[in-house]
């Protein structure tokens, strides 16, 4: 049994516009989309480009559109997809470097802009900073993000407004705002409250749908909005 991969290909140095190319892939039981891509690269057409590393759904390299859904190629089994033609496209809203490889610099620059590192107020103690299990639980989901950029590519606001921070950066800010050890929550809220921050979100929930780890950046948006609103109420009093 075989399936067909229909891949949107583009080399900006050679091609005027992107175009689909079809490849036949012999199917093995349990075969993933990533394994299919390697089959094409190693046996059929070495010029095809895609990112990969862990092949176990944890490194975030292989986010892409598979049959128009945001997925990781490595954890998508071919048999789980309907039909015998599988359409692959690069993450939209990002410049294409080649084929399925996109330029993630806009994504990373927003990630960096929220200061993605702990900023404590106190000097560190000799041993660990204590944190209760309940406090640790509050950063459970927000620290699980694998930075695949699927949410960023899916977000309709990020797609039309390049200044918007986007779902990942906001989730990343919340990762530290919600951390009991961080002492710069106010500064972090200032970073994400402007016109390109949380209030720009239209709650389309595209990020939530696109996340392969079932995380919910829109929940972080809501959390931070609530905190910012509470803060301004307190200031008025």
């Amino acid at each position, binding site marked *: 049994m075989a399936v067909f991969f229909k891949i949107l290909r583009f*080399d900006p*140095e*050679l091609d005027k516009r992107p175009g689909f190319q079809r490849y036949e892939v012999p199917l093995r039981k*349990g075969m993933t989309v990533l394994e299919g891509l*390697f089959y094409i*690269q*190693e*046996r059929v*057409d*070495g*010029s*095809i*480009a*895609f*990112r*990969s*590393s*862990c*092949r*176990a*759904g*944890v*490194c*975030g*390299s292989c986010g892409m559109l598979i049959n128009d859904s945001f997925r990781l190629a490595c*954890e998508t089994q071919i048999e789980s997809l309907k039909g015998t033609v599988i359409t692959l496209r690069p993450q939209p809203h990002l410049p294409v*470097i*080649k*084929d399925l*490889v996109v330029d*993630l610099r806009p994504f*990373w620059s927003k990630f*960096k802009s929220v*200061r*993605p*590192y*702990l900023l*404590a107020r106190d000097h*560190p103690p*000799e*041993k*660990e*900073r*204590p*944190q*209760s*299990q309940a*406090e*640790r639980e509050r*950063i459970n989901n927000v*620290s*699980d993000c*694998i*930075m695949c950029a699927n949410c960023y590519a899916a977000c309709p606001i990020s797609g039309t407004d390049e200044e918007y921070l986007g779902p990942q950066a906001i989730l990343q800010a919340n990762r*530290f705002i919600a*951390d009991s*050890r*961080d002492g710069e929550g106010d500064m972090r809220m200032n970073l994400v409250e402007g016109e390109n921050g949380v209030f720009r979100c239209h709650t389309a929930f595209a990020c939530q749908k696109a996340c392969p780890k079932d995380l919910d950046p829109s929940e972080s948006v809501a959390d931070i909005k609530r905190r910012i609103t509470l803060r301004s109420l307190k200031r008025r009093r």
Partner: protein
Amino acid sequence: MRNFNIIVVGGGLAGMRALIEGNRRNLKVALFSKVHPVRSHSIAAQGGINAALGNHPRGFNDSVEKHAYDTIKGSDYLADQDAVIRMCAEAPERIYEMEHWGCPFSRAEDGKIAQRPFGGAGFPRTCYAADRTGHMLLHTLYGQVVKFEQWAERGETVVLDEWLVTAIAVDGGTCVGIVALDLVTGRLEAFQSDAVIFATGGSCRIYGNSTNAVINTGIGMAVPYWAGVPLKDMEFIQFHPTTLFGTNILVTEGARGEGGFLLNNKGERFLANYPDSRKAMEVAPRDIVSRNIMREIEQGGGFPGGYVLLDLRHIGVRKIMERLPGIRELCMNFAGVDPVDVPIPVQPGAHYTMGGIDTNSLGACKIKGLYSAGESACVSVHGANRLGGNSLLETIVYGKIAGESAGEYVIGKALAGPSSEKVLNDTLKREEEKLNRLLKSDGKEKMGVLKDEMNKVMADQAGIFRDAEGLKDALARITELRERYRKIGLSSQGRRMNQEMMWAIELGGSLDVADAILRGALARQESRGSHFRRDFPKRDDGKWLRHSIAYYSNEGARLEYAPVTISKFQPKEREY
């Protein structure tokens, strides 16, 4: 020509930890990585990181000395004891540092870092962040690198990702820089540097049945090896006992640490039937558990295709969700089973290269100005068999040490002279010619075919059980593959993001590292740790308590031997 004080090659935990030391010394540092740092294989580490913190109720009696003893016994006495003692002594400080930098460790009830039992350890000393410890450590350290990039109040930090380092430049026995390929444009460039640190991870993708990320080809070991730096103890390849049947995706040792059982096809905990795992059962060290799984399968206790079961059902849904959520997700996505309801089909898989670039206990190599740390290096702290939870520890302890050593070396050093620029330009020219030859070759050999053949030979004949006949045959076949590699032809000649070209370059490294593994394994006529010879089933301290040192030559690795540092603990028989 762009120049730096320190170039770090590799963006995993060891590389980034080393980079920070350069920044702390106000130096101009650059990190070169094949992939973006957060895609490094460190991300895949699950179970945890060891330190004798004594946070667990059963761990209050734990100590640095006991951690060192367990590590040395686990290594089957091949580890250098001074290096092990240093690693264990610095462990608590490094872990508290990661915590201070924000690493979200799981917590005990009193708010301290939680610790769990792990294989071969006398006390629960493995600190963890659920079953995503590598992920949390790597993201924390990447955050620190971003901080240093932004603040730049000390040194200057530059990260160059999607660059493949293809050569080091050596001027009269001193490393003076690197040549690297920009994977996006396909252009080669030479960079001058006062010191270079290789933190490029392991080589287990040489094996077909591997837990490793596809990026772990061994090219990072091959590049210094080609330049005359020896590789140490390469025959010691760790097979992790529990990887998903079929895909070899890792199932953490933490699953057994939390109480999981290994069962044969009769539903028995078969490890009780083997003398070396009788007492410790599922938490015996990895070499022993992997061997006994294979023995059980050979004796008919396995399931069709060759696997046994890892049963977590009795641990309960709450503990699985809290401590092993990632394992549950992996099992559902890749094996179609939910471990809450069904046992997991597992088999051993190639997991870790104990050997690597020969370094001393300061992380320095035999070529001046060149350093290595992490899995790519062999200090040696793991000897013939690494304990779970010690690899993450090695990355941050020896990453820091290698960064410090390189930093101190650079500060004390005179500026590079004009001769080094000439050497760099010559090296660049040589790499350029090599790349052009590859791109223009009309050879008929295919990268993917050669890689698959190498993967199969190594998995079948250089795995958990070895013998002279199998190893000799494997060596003949790898030698033939090295010959055929010269006639490799690419289907695409463009330079931009040409990944076939990238994998072909890396395959050249894999084959030479495979040759070093096989020659080391064939020569070592004893069984020690992960290296088990059916024809020499006993450990032989009289002849073989020594490190293998492999030097590159066109005809294959040339072997020498070096003594093991034994200070505190005399070799004894190993039982668990």
